[in-house]
């Protein structure tokens, strides 16, 4: 018997050596045996890819943001794009329309950030490399720092290495400073830029404002709900007397609190709870105990329902940037023209505390085989302030013809020549409020683990406000969860 066991074990180890030893050989064999499962065209590009991979020398030297000479690999015909919404993929449709000679096929992968699925998948695709690796990828504010400055920053290409004249264009387009700060890697190279400006405002119901305060004028309402959260809670009480909730759930207020704090979750590798963020425990409790909201969770059914009065009580307003209006609220208002559902019954005013929320940064893979083409696309999206640049279309809602959704964009130059009048807001020009709101946005309080840490934090806050545990316990449990699950020092 022992003989057999010994034989088995030796066999296993020989096997394992053989398998790890000849990974390359295996690969080519596999791709030829798996013709049934792979389309033949993708197989071919894979082979070509591996050939060129060996020739290519990794480009990249630190220095000023001056454009470097770049050229495309003529054998590559596909650009892989990874995103968590269909925004950037739709932009590329337009880009192809504007550039009929564009010779590349765009292969798009869209994975939503809900359930935290996007990052692990993207990370693996970046790490695996090869023909399936992303050439262009998008990152959201909650985790963009990981790709520009954190654990995964080694994959991001400097814009200058894509042939983009960064310094000149930044000035010309008057790009908001916080998107530049966030998109700059530790070597001082710009690796990512956003196309949106995501400074936030308070978006409220005109009819409810009239009912409670006799007017729906944003200049009056902003002084009712702010400045400062004390006034905000006074307003909540007034609204409650009339049977309204001021916000849908505590999550609405969270985004305002999160991004108005001085410091982020991690300072010098240690967990840091900014006093402003810690105070959110009390705000959440106060909202819940006084029944100021419908106790919904953002991005869940009941939250969307409150945008069209389908909740337990009518909700006065939401905290959000311009994208929330067009991409979330308009679609969930129960109508598409004034008079239908809550459409047209909204207005925006200055929020009680300044904040910004979200935004998409566009990055390139430094191993891309077609840096020039990728650079052209990224320049068009993030730095082109002309009237055929993406941001002009984006701000005016003309990306897919007139009448599309409008949004605030990162380029101040573009904002100056754009018009933000919306039927959804009863004809208000939202840019009047959102452009100054952009000043509150800063990239200083973000960290690379925000998405994960926020998940734990919000969970514990809910436990506390629901009365399931004490404030101290919630804080202790939060620290414990961060320590247990992340490579972060917790004191």
């Amino acid at each position, binding site marked *: 018997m022992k003989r057999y066991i010994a034989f088995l074990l030796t*066999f*296993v180890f020989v*096997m*394992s050596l053989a*398998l790890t030893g000849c990974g390359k050989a295996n690969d080519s064999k596999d791709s030829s045996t798996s013709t049934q499962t792979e389309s033949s065209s993708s197989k071919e590009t894979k082979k070509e890819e591996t050939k060129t991979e060996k020739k290519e020398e990794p480009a990249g030297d630190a220095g000023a943001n001056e454009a470097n000479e770049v050229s495309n690999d003529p054998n590559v015909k596909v650009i892989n794009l990874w995103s968590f919404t269909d925004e950037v993929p739709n932009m590329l449709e337009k880009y192809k329309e504007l550039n009929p000679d564009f010779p590349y096929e765009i292969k798009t992968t869209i994975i939503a950030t809900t*359930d*935290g699925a996007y*990052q*692990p998948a993207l*990370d693996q695709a*970046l*790490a695996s490399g090869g023909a399936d690796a992303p050439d262009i990828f998008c990152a959201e504010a909650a985790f963009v720092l990981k790709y520009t400055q954190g*654990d*995964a920053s080694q994959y991001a290409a400097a814009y200058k290495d894509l042939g983009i004249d960064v310094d000149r264009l930044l000035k010309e387009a008057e790009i908001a400073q916080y998107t530049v700060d966030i998109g700059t890697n530790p070597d001082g190279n710009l690796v990512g830029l956003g196309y949106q400006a995501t400074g936030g405002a308070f978006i409220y119901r005109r009819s409810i404002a009239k009912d409670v305060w006799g007017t729906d004028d944003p200049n009056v309402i902003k002084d009712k709900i702010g400045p400062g959260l004390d006034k905000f809670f006074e307003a909540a009480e007034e609204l409650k007397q009339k049977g309204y909730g001021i916000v849908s759930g505590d999550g609405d207020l969270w985004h305002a609190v999160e991004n108005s704090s001085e410091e982020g979750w991690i300072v010098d590798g240690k967990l840091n709870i900014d006093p402003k963020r810690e105070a959110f425990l009390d705000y959440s409790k106060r909202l819940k105990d006084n029944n100021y909201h*419908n*106790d*919904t969770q953002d991005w*869940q*059914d*009941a939250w969307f*329902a409150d945008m069209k009065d389908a*909740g*337990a009580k009518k909700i006065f307003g939401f905290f959000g940037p311009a994208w929330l209006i067009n991409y979330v609220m308009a679609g969930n208002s129960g109508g598409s023209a004034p008079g239908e559902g809550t459409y047209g019954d909204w207005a925006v005013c200055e929020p009680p505390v300044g904040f910004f929320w979200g935004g998409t940064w566009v990055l390139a893979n430094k191993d891309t085989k077609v840096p020039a083409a990728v650079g052209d696309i990224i320049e068009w999206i993030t730095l082109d302030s002309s009237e055929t640049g993406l941001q002009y279309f984006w701000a005016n809602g003309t990306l897919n013809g007139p009448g599309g959704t409008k949004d605030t964009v990162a380029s101040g130059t573009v904002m100056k020549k754009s018009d933000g009048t919306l039927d959804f807001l009863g004809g208000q020009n939202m840019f009047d409020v959102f452009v100054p709101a952009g000043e509150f946005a800063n990239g200083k309080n973000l960290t690379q*683990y925000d998405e*994960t840490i926020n*998940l734990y934090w919000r*969970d*514990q806050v*809910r*436990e506390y406000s*629901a009365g*399931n*545990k004490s404030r101290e316990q919630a804080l202790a*449990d939060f620290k*414990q*969860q961060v320590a*247990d*699950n*992340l*490579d*972060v020092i917790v004191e």
Partner: protein
Amino acid sequence: MRRKGLSYAKYGYIFCIPFVLAFLIFSLYPIIYTAVIGFTDLKGLGRTDFKILENPFQNFITIIKNASFQQSLKNTIIIWVVNFIPQILIALLLTAWFTNHRNKIKGQGAFKVLFYMPNIITAATIAILFYSLFGYPKGPVNDLFMMLGITDEPIYFLIQKSTARGIVSFIQFWMWYGYTMIVLISGVLGMNPELFEASEIDGATSAQTFFFITLPNLRTILLYTLITSLIGGLNMFDIPRLFLLGGPDNATLTTSVFIYNQAFSGSYMYNRAAAASMIMFVIIAILSGMIFYIMRDKDAAQLKKFQKKQQKALRAAEKAGRRADG
């Protein structure tokens, strides 16, 4: 006969080669690999090089001390026990009913097909479905409860630890009792009909027949069910992860979700995840060993009987018996 058996014996080996090969490559090698990673500093994205830690057991110590891991182990066991007990009871009850020759249930074919059905839906689908069923402040279950006067205020099911765990257990129960039932029925159908006839002649009631004839003879299949369910239960992943992401407050965090979180979200701590995996492996091996040990005697006896019937050489049988004992 014996001679003949010997001359064909090589086919016994030949026919097992595919199984053994696939096992070595796809199971054993990854297990060894996982075990090795557990002793190293392999963490961070896209890394493949690693070295053994100064204190090789550092990851194991970290994991065992990790409060979330302890919590996840507790959750996993609670959720498994709460789902498995009703599951096996209902499955046994249905098996008794469906294999009872004296009063057959009409339409039992249809019932069998329906009972297994929840198992064929993707966990992702079930998670979404139950999420909306238990919605708060508005949701069908809350509406129903308020309509029936069970509660005056909507219940926030998904942030109460006990209800959240209860719902996960229920989903697991609901998905798997049909499967367990089918396996158990297969076991009963394989029994010698004479056994049942004899007990009927002796005037035993259905219940007596079930408890004194069916159940004892179902031992092997019950063992199979117990072991597979234990393994499945301790590796519960899809529902806890998709339904509430392990929340609220870690109440539905199972060890598999914990391992996934360590390895694939946040900090990519492959080494800690590997250590946690190996700890789970040891726990499962010990528990399974205990179950085997409890059922050891009868099993070995059955094996011996069977081998006699096959006219196997006595010596080989004893040897095997000793192996099963050891």
